[in-house]
């Protein structure tokens, strides 16, 4: 049983283009039966925030390879990736690396 959570979801490196160009989103995740982890967050994002071309952001139940995920400025690899359990006031940043430089 998870209580409602307030988190900030950010997009960068071009990923914001899939979200109407909006980089920062203050989000309130509703209370629900299952705990809020990144896996569930992605499902929520796909349903509620993603404006176009979901295949450019999500692949399977994770992000498309080439999209970095930082939670409170730390690579999600260090935190359990999809299994990381969100805390209130967390910042989750998705940076796309998939463009020329």
């Amino acid at each position, binding site marked *: 049983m998870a209580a409602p959570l307030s988190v900030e979801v950010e997009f960068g490196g071009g990923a914001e283009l899939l979200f109407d160009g909006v980089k920062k989103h203050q989000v309130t995740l509703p209370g629900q039966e299952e705990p809020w982890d990144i896996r569930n967050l992605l499902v929520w994002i796909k349903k509620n925030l993603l404006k176009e071309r979901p295949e450019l952001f999500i692949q399977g139940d994770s992000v498309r390879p080439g999209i970095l995920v930082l939670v409170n400025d730390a*690579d999600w690899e260090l935190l359990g990736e999809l299994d990381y359990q969100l805390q209130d006031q967390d910042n989750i940043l998705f940076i796309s690396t998939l463009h020329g430089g």
Partner: protein
Amino acid sequence: MPAPPCASCGKARAALRRPRSGQALCGACFCTAFEAEVLRTVLAGRLLPPGAVVAVGASGGKDSTVLAHVLRALAPRLGLTLHLVAVDEGIGGYRDAALASVRRQAARWELPLTIVAYADLFGGWTMDAVARSTAGSGRSRSCCTFCGVLRRRALEEGARRVGATHIVTGHNADDMAETVLMNFLRGDAARLARGGGLGSRGEGGALPRCRPLQLASQKEVVLYAHFRRLDYFSEECVYAPEAFRGHARDLLKRLEAARPSVVLDLVHSAERLALAPAARPPRPGACSRCGALASRALCQACALLDGLNRGRPRLAIGKGRRGLDEEGAQGAPGDAEGGVEGAQGASGDAERDVEGAQGDTEGGVEGAQGAPGDAEGAPSSCDCGASGVRAACDCE
């Protein structure tokens, strides 16, 4: 589960794990390590001697932004003078926005900026004009062929204008790894062997070029930009087509998820390859028109411009380039579209393949592909002499 403490300073929480060593570092220690590695790359390879005047290919994109930022930090230590050189290919709605980003950077960093425009350098041929001219040939991606070759030339010109002794571009390890995969997949032996090494001496009067970020994985370049709060331009070139590099890139990304060190491991493998004697390319000569390095009568740039000006843009693309040697010849049947990979497809490839500003020209020019099994044409060869199925390789 919280992140472990930083392995370097022990004080802050780690922000990432380095792909090769697996070492967990905080943001600040990672940035320090990243800069130290670039310094080591430059020193160990003797890439940029003290007193060098360095033209930094700048596109406004993530790689050239990081490159310029790091070199600027290292410049006093290395005794370098830096100039930003940006290439304006004349791509409406895209390049203008990117150049605005470069101008902001030049102002913020207080670095001189020179912009070289295709329209000025190549008799009015902007990429938009080239795209329209090549549209009829049924292969949208062939316009990237031109861009790759011309951008290298434009960068060279810009570097000369500022009196540079060296050119640097921001190609990162992922670009190199993708190129290695592509060369394997397309049987391009000569380019495979050439792929190793950190830079080119600069043959045929060309300025020496190198890629100080060559051993930095793309992920780490992006993370560095993030932790240093660097502002860069991150949109795709409007002509970024589906090109072959996209396949290599997808494969590489999937592999990286399973084995994070694969990017750097591929680059290191390529460095250790040796060519069988029969596969070594012949020595190149000089272009009869402009004097640049060329393995045929005309160098790539002159050949492509010739084709454009004669209204036959595909002359110089594809196996054989027979149209150039035999007046009136048609593009070979089976003259594969092989459009030059030029900028690879998917994201901002125009950014990827050609030398030049980061993001503008990352890898080498892929050159035309030529159909496998096209028995008719003589193999086309790069200006450097590397033969194979492509019009230009990524010799630098």
